[in-house]
């Protein structure tokens, strides 16, 4: 019974002990280790960045020096314009050098990687806050054609609840030259954008008007497409599949706009951001209600804007008299053409295809860019075709006959189910959801339009949501795996090297600065190994020389005196105060080198004791070893040896 109890106690104790160790490892040691690794990585990154800055600073200085003779030469020849250009260039070099040197001293916190990849410039360490209440500026994007500045910011004190980590502030400034007409137009579009949830907040003061949107990191489609077509040849299957996927995302976004009763009006590659979650439609500066009573304008981008829109605008048609959603679909077709062909559709629907993308994709493009009455009636219809292509294993092999819009209903029957251009549409039915604020929702966004295909939209939305989830999971995984990534490993190695270097330097310094004390031996002298150089360094006891010689001879050494060797030893070995109780490794090596050169096995340095200036000590240097002997002890030892028969 007692044995069982003991076994039970041992088992429970083992389990508790193991659990305690596990908890200790998990909650105490792991954070400490992680902290150490992070610190080493930080040091590594810092060193790498500093080295880069130093190299850049040196390079800029080098170029500046190279430019100087050229400037002088141009001055001599009277080429003032060239001189001015070079001086401006030189000024730029110096500014850059100054920034680099400043960076060497004050290394700013790392700019977020997604911000680095975004075209534009970052404010770096010049982060500003207060310019826009509730937001701290961290960067700036390339401005578009609207005359507004696009600033990247992060939430600060006073930011609205639930604000994303990073936002874009589009700011129109009258004093900065922003056109008033554009400001008014965008402020009109703001209402629609807020309904679509694309604007977080907006504000204005005497000269400025700005609004805040979520920041979507990534590159715009024009850049991505250019990169995709760099080799100039045919596109791979993966590239085609990616292109179709982006078009599907674009159509899903357009569907949301159209459902809410708006059209984007400026769908073009520069307004589509591509990242690992797909394609995102941005810039709603021209967003217009489908049933607006305003006159249609020709705003938009050439080659991506439907020529029919221009014709209708020139005729003075109202927005409500046309179906703006179809103009968006034309642009979506043009964008798909741009992706697969790598160039804009110069001849509209008659543009030639040079890249082998498959009949079905061409069919979709031509159907989207077809005449106003013959193109897809709704974004849902086009989305169904594109989603079908995206779901297929190889979009190139899909026949036009397999597309949902062709197989389910003949194209000629599906054409123009909507009121024709020029016919006045009836106003949409609206339902007021909040009488106090005046909020309403459009019940019938496009009067007379066929019912949307909810399945396709739902599928696209579900796909988007799942992609968002996957993106979040990836982010978490990345943040967890960042330490084990190559960059982290490299930074870790560099940090380790730096620490190792510091360690070696400290050790070396210790070796140089702190001499090892020479051990005092109570043993008799070692047996003779050959010639020994005697150096008398005792200022008071000249008689000690003979005593030491005797002691050495008795142990089998051959005491010798050599002026040259003594002089070199005095030069290389420290003899400053005549008292040598601490010898460093370098001095030992130097002494050994001198003795080897003059064929001495050892050197016996006669010197005074640190305690008693009249006492005599012998510092015996043999090879790399130094030993201190007391002359009295040596004498006694010699006596005992003599007394021994």
């Amino acid at each position, binding site marked *: 019974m007692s044995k069982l109890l003991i076994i039970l106690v041992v088992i429970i104790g083992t389990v508790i002990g193991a659990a305690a160790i596990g908890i200790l490892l998990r909650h105490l040691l792991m954070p400490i280790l992680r902290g150490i690794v992070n610190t080493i990585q930080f040091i590594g990154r810092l060193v790498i960045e500093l080295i880069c800055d130093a190299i850049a600073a040196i390079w800029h200085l080098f170029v500046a020096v190279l430019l100087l003779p050229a400037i002088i030469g141009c001055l001599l020849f009277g080429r003032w314009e060239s001189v001015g250009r070079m001086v401006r260039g030189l000024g730029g070099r110096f500014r850059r050098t100054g920034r680099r040197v400043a960076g060497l001293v004050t290394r700013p916190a790392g700019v977020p990687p997604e911000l680095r990849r975004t075209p534009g410039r970052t404010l770096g360490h010049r982060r500003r806050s207060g310019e826009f209440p509730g937001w701290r500026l961290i960067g700036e994007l390339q401005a578009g054609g609207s005359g507004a500045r696009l600033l990247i910011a992060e939430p600060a004190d006073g930011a609205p609840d639930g604000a994303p980590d990073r936002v874009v502030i589009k700011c129109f400034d009258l004093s900065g030259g922003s056109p008033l007409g554009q400001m008014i137009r965008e402020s009109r579009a703001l209402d629609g954008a807020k309904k679509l949830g694309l604007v977080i907040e907006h504000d204005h003061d005497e000269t400025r008007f700005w609004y805040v949107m979520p920041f979507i990191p990534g590159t715009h489609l024009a850049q991505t497409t250019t990169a995709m077509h760099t080799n100039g040849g045919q596109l791979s299957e993966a590239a085609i599949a990616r292109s179709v996927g982006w078009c599907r995302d674009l159509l899903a976004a357009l569907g949301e706009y159209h459902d809410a009763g708006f059209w984007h009006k400026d769908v073009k590659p520069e307004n589509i951001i591509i990242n690992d979650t797909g394609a995102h439609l941005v810039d709603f500066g021209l967003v217009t209600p489908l049933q607006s009573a305003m006159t249609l304008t020709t705003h938009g981008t050439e080659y991506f804007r439907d020529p029919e829109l221009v014709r209708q605008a020139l005729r003075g048609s109202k927005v409500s008299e046309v179906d703006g959603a179809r103009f968006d679909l034309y642009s979506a077709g043009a964008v798909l053409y741009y992706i697969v062909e790598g160039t804009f559709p110069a*001849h509209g629907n008659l543009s*030639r295809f040079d890249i082998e993308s498959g*009949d079905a994709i061409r069919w979709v493009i031509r159907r989207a860019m077809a*005449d106003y009455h*013959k193109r897809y009636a709704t974004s849902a219809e086009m989305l169904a075709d594109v989603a079908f292509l995206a779901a297929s294993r190889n979009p190139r092999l899909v026949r036009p006959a397999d597309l949902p819009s062709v197989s389910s209903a*003949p194209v*000629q029957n599906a*054409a123009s189910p909507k009121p024709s251009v020029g016919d006045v549409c009836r106003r949409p039915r609206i339902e007021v959801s909040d009488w106090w604020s005046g909020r309403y929702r459009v019940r019938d966004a496009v009067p007379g339009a066929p019912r949307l295909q909810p399945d396709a939209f739902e599928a696209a939305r579900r796909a988007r949501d799942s992609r968002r989830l996957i993106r979040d999971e990836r982010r978490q995984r990345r943040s967890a795996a960042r330490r084990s990534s190559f960059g982290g490993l490299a930074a870790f190695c560099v940090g380790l090297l730096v620490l190792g270097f510091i360690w070696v330097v400290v050790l070396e310094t210790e070796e140089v600065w702190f001499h090892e004390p020479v051990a005092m031996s109570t043993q008799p002298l070692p047996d003779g190994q050959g010639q020994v150089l005697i150096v008398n360094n005792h200022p008071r006891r000249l008689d000690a020389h003979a005593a030491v010689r005797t002691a050495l001879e008795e142990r089998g050494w051959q005491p010798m005196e050599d002026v040259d060797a003594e002089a070199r030893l005095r030069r290389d070995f420290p003899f400053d105060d005549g008292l040598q109780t601490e010898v460093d490794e370098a001095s030992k090596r130097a002494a050994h080198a001198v003795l080897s050169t003059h064929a001495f096995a050892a050197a016996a340095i006669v010197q005074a004791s640190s305690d008693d200036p009249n006492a005599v000590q012998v510092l015996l240097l043999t090879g790399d070893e130094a030993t201190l002997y007391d002359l009295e002890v040596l004498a006694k030892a010699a006596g005992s040896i003599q007394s021994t028969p």
Partner: protein
Amino acid sequence: MHQLTTSFVRRLRDRDEAAWFELWQVFGPILRGQLMKWGNGRLGMETVRDLSQETLAALSKSIERFDPTRGVRFSTWLLAIARHAMSDEIDRRMALKRGAGKRPIHLQEDWMGGLGNAVDADYEQRIFEAKVAAAIRRAESSSDFMSFEVYRMRVLDGRSGKDVAVQLGVSQPTISRHLQQARGELRTRLTEIVATWSFTPEEMAEAELAGLSGDDTLFDEALAEIWHRAASMDSEC
């Protein structure tokens, strides 16, 4: 002179913006190509676009003076206006650069004066191809989508009837029917466009000389050839 021609000129004089837009669509690319050619690769795309717009603005000012009954080609007249627009631009640039130590850009020799009033064969050929392209565009707009796609795949892309039938999931007789419809529409639109944009008997006869008045096979062959030539020239520009 065809009634369509005179009515179109009247629309232009009446400042009908749709007519001007149509003119821009038909002649704009040719004009840009010609300006690029004169520029000898030294003019940027933006400059060419500005110059073509200035040409159109000058044309709108002087359209009152254009008399279609005098037998002058509209395209030749347009070319003369473009030449003057180019001349003004060069003068302006020279004035800007004078004293700046920069050499003026070198343009193709025949950009001014060399041509006189003679007809540039290459330019006129492109004008004719632009008219055919406009007819195709108009036919594409007015005909049934499926019919035109069948015609495009079968004739312009040179696919076999069987292949087109398989791709579109229809029978070959259906393909033939669509082809007939699209071809009929194309013939109508071509006649219309040629009548609208032809000011001389030579221009009226251009379509016939190009083989566009023959039977169906000849018509298809001629149209496809002109279409491909125009597309390749556009891509070169």
